[in-house]
């Protein structure tokens, strides 16, 4: 029988980030899709008004600002968080992380049974999270460019990054799908890890604590 111990991995701030990020993405995807394709017909003339599109947009923007706050927090933690939260712990830039990356891929492909106990993110997941974080910046800049079309600051950035408003809309919409696909795979892999791994990964994002093998940590 292997021995496990429970260690503190995720700070309160990181958990707050996670849930703000997750819930805002869900909200942004639902409201964003409605903005893209307003499938429900608004009430026809004569009936009481609902301003369904105006309200959906408002919710999108509120969720957008929560999303922005979350992204800023995560960038802060990448550099100043605890040892598991820093990018040095999971980006495959060191031999240790790179070896763990290969081991994780093997494990995910069912080629090896060994679940590498990472403590924090495994390098595969961590790298994807970092990419999503960078894509978030793209979403934020395109979103703010669309939201403040008369602000010379955002219009300046928007022109540099995207060109016209139409290009920004297309980028914003295209990466909406990327966020959707990411969310799906993320939820699946976390549940999978919960079943095949030993860390109790799902509860860790509530409690901040994970199980690790006591002989390896």
């Amino acid at each position, binding site marked *: 029988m292997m021995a496990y111990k429970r260690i503190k991995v995720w700070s309160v701030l990181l958990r707050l980030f996670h849930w703000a990020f997750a819930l805002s993405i869900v909200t942004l995807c639902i409201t964003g899709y409605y903005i*893209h*394709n*307003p499938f*429900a*017909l*608004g*009430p*026809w*003339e004569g009936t009481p*008004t*609902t*301003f*369904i*599109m*105006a309200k959906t947009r408002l919710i999108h923007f509120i969720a957008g600002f929560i999303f922005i706050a979350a992204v800023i927090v995560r960038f802060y933690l990448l550099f100043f968080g605890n040892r598991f939260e820093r990018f040095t712990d999971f980006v495959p830039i060191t031999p240790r992380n790179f070896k763990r990356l290969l081991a994780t891929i093997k494990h*995910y492909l*069912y080629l090896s049974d060994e679940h590498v106990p990472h403590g924090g993110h495994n390098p595969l997941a961590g790298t994807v999270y970092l990419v999503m974080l960078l894509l978030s910046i793209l979403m934020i800049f395109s979103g703010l460019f669309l939201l403040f*079309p*008369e602000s*010379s600051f955002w*219009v*300046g950035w928007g*022109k540099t990054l995207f*060109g*016209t*408003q*139409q*290009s*920004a*809309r*297309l980028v914003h*919409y*295209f990466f*909406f*799908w*990327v966020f*959707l*696909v990411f969310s*799906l*795979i993320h939820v*699946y892999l976390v549940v*999978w890890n919960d*079943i*095949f791994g030993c860390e109790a990964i799902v509860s860790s994002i509530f409690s901040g604590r994970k199980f690790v093998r006591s002989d390896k940590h």
Partner: protein
Amino acid sequence: MSRLLWNGLGKLKRRDFLKACTILTAAMGLPVEMVDKVAAAIKSPQRPPVIWLHFMECTGCSESLLRASHPDIARLILDIISLEYHETLMAAAGKQAEEVLEASVKKYKGRFICVVEGAISTKDGGVYCKIGGRTSLEILKDVASQAKAVVAVGTCACFGGVQAAHPNPTGAVGVGKIITNKPLINVPGCPPNPYNILGTLVYILTFGKFPELDKYRRPKFGYGRRIHDQCERRPHFDEGRFVEQFGDEGHKKGYCLYKVGCKGPVTYANCPVVRFCDVGVWPVGSGHGCLGCTEPDFWDKMEPFYEHLPGVEVPGGQGIISKADKVGKVALGAAAVGIAAHATAGVVKKIAHKEKEE
């Protein structure tokens, strides 16, 4: 020269003159107190000499300016500016016309405003557009270098327009790509609203400087706000009432054209406010979505005109255009299938493991 050409039209009545000045002042976003200043500037004998060059275009911009439906404007422009050279309007032709150009450039060197209508061909030395044996590229460089300022009128002169659309066989570009060392204003549109053209010229005349410009060098008074944010159908947008198809019930009731491809949400222009032809019409007002004609590369970027967003080029698909929607749904579907396969493999493995353990 204007007198020579328009001898049939006679002078503007004072009332009409002031009316036109008021509209112009409003179009420039200036308060009503400025009308007098604008009128005084227009009446001043020092009218700016203008040399109007035509390159690859349809003359629609000039036409829109001179349409009979707003004769005040037509006469006003000929009264305000002293048009030294304009191929469509001038009586001279051929060699004679080219001599006029040369003489005017020499006479007003460093003082005239060079208005450009139409795109410039750059491919193969610019041979696809020649006037009097000289390429448009040569003429533009020559004339613009001696001008005080350059005003690009119409989307072709600003951004290349239809001839610059993919695959752009003549290498057409807008003025800004060639003239980089002269003050330049872009007045895009297909065609631009006559009031925006005139407003730009009158602003320079009245204040002796350029109006405030945006990032694409468009005057902010005309292009500082999106169509969508000033559209009369906007309440229908906010309320979620959309035209689903041209001719349907919603279309008859004047609902928002967002779902049939209106580009108002991404297009900067004052069409809903200034409108066209002096009878208060503009595309969305008459039931057709905005095409985004004041935006750079609108022929490529705003396509398809009847859909909200353009297609995305599938990487490696050799020009196969797919809708972002379709790409997204395929990716989502692929992810779901992948997950299902991965999960099945996991379950199979677990079962196999258990059997071994037992």
